[in-house]
């Protein structure tokens, strides 16, 4: 039995200050991840009355290690995450400035685990005035 995790992460950011008092910033990341158990392959080896692995059987009491061959799917994880932030700041004059920031996160849970589907999106637009004395 082995376990494999594969993660790709892309990141980008930028800062731009075209004028004194004016600045822009942006950042983004995109992450693709999956992890899973692999290569679980038990040969059927029953010890009770010759019953084989047969999903139609009504008699339970059959212990067969081959019943575990499905377990690879129980704890598989597969998700993508987007993280984006964009912001701008402008000093109107020496005493007043304005700032705007936008945050966005998107989680896409493609193989929910015991916590249910954890897919979700979150976004927030913040804007505020700054007064300097």
């Amino acid at each position, binding site marked *: 039995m082995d*376990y494999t995790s594969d993660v790709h992460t892309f990141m980008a950011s930028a800062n731009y200050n075209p004028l004194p008092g004016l600045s822009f910033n942006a950042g983004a990341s995109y992450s693709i991840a999956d992890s899973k158990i692999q290569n679980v392959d038990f040969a059927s080896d029953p010890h009770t009355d010759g019953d084989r692995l047969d999903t139609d059987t009504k008699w339970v009491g059959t212990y067969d290690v081959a019943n575990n061959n499905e377990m690879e799917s129980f704890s598989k994880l597969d998700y993508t995450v987007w993280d984006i932030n964009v912001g701008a700041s402008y000093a109107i004059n020496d005493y007043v400035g304005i700032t705007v920031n936008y945050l966005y996160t998107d989680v896409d849970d493609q193989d929910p685990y015991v916590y249910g589907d954890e897919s979700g999106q979150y976004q927030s637009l913040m804007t505020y005035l700054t007064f300097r004395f």
Partner: protein
Amino acid sequence: MKKYIAIFVIFALAVFLPFGNAAWADEDSEQSIHVELSGGVSINGNNDSPNKAAEYRSLSDEDTVGIYGGSVDVRSGKIEFGAEGRHIDTVDQDYSGHLDVDRIFELHGGYQEFLHRLGQDELLHIQATSAAPGMAAQLWHSYEYAPDFDVNSNEAPNKDFGVNYEKYDATTVLRLPMVPGVKVGVHYRYENREGYQQAMGMSKCGSCHVVAHDKDIDETTQDYKPFVEVNLGQLSMEYSFLYRTFDNHSDHLNHLYDPAVHPFTGTWDPITNDKYGGVNYDYRDGPLELSRNPEATKTVHHVKGKYDISKNQSVSFGYIHSFAENQSADEYGIEGHELDTTYDAGMLSWTANLTRDLLVSLNGRYQFIDSDSADIDLKGDSNDWTRDSDEERNIANVRADVRYRLLRNLTLRGGYEYESDDRKNQEFIVDRDIKTHKFKTKAKWRPSSGLSVTAGYKFTFRDDPYALEDAAYPTHIELCVDDEGNEPVPHVGTYPYGEYVYGTRTHNMSTDPEFEHEAKMKANWSPMDMLFVSVYTRYVHGVNNEDLEYKYKDDLLDSGIDVTVTPINKLSMTLGYNYLRNNMDSEFYIPYYHG
């Protein structure tokens, strides 16, 4: 007494006066006040589950929220005061401040609060079924069997699991002009966690039924840490004392077991209607507590110092003594005493630039850990046993590092580290004394002004790596006959299941590599001022088949590239990519019993 005070004052003046001018010679008569106030609004939105998308963000719970912040910076002669803060939400705040009075008295601290959302195990995977011959199948492990599973319908309807973290810390420092080189201070930290999380219990009812509850979290950690730092020329020393408390004000969580759901004291054969054996050792009715974190205290005495023999040579040393105590162990009838762990460690290191190009560093450290045993007294005499602590051990560590500048643009490094971890009580592991050898080598080369390449290799050899002894693969079951002549199931009370079934396991299992190779490479290239490229890769390969019936393997590849472009002075962009692949190969053991 008055005489002593007079002597002290005269002495203080005698020492103080020569420094009087020096202390205030740099007086800055400038005065300034800068204030910034911010106010605004945050418009928020979320879809589906916020648990991961907004794991540490509280705002997704509200559509529109006012946000506030600001800073103040005051300088007036010898006094400097600054503070800043932001308030995004009642559970998302950040404040910090500092006060400096002529460099004699300094105070800095901060307050922070944030939310951590937690997930909820839906227990939908716990739906196993079974049937005896001639009977309709029964639903065991049923989440529906315990009606209070549904956490949204119990005491706290529609509760979202999460914990509010609240932290406050402050450090005060006093430097007295008349005693230069001496600094005394105290650090205080307060951390509080409040909220709810899911707690699951599994006991009594055949150890098959899982129930879930809301668990109230109300925990506080406090640190008090006075310290004194003394610089006596080439010798610098510091002493600190830490007193830590962990208080748990959470409600005690209980699951109620009553006669109506009282499990059989044994196994019931539906055909013969016989009851025999038993899976649990305790079938009493009433509340059974679960999921409780014990209160604890910890004290630490730490002395450390450094002696600068010359500009190029120094020796540092330290000793630490810590005592951690579980304040709640005696609540559960564990022999009526608190469990504690004592830790002592001493270290010594020497570092020298033997020549302009050669640096050598030698380090040694020895640690002693003593931890109480616990006498376990479960219901029934045959269930008594003594739990010796896994923590008890002596650890010796020595390390040597050498750095040699072979050429102006080529630096070589080598190092060796040896560690002996001698456990006192670990009865479950294969070998109590684990010896680890690490060999490291590294080279840094700058072939041209815009290019540098670093490559390193580390080899680790663990003699008898950490492994669980007899973890798997029972070869047989010691069958027994009970007092009534029933067989073959070994039952609790007379024949401990743990001994007659688990006790026949024969294969060891491990998750630590015996041999580990790690190779790293990084290249930074800047062909022109506006472009910087960094490429890196790290590969780790570990194997272990020491005392194992299989070969454990662990492969890790971690690589990436970063590109930073600055086409004009005002614009900077960075692109990066990272790839991580980890493959671990272990053995899956599953036993085959009587069923």
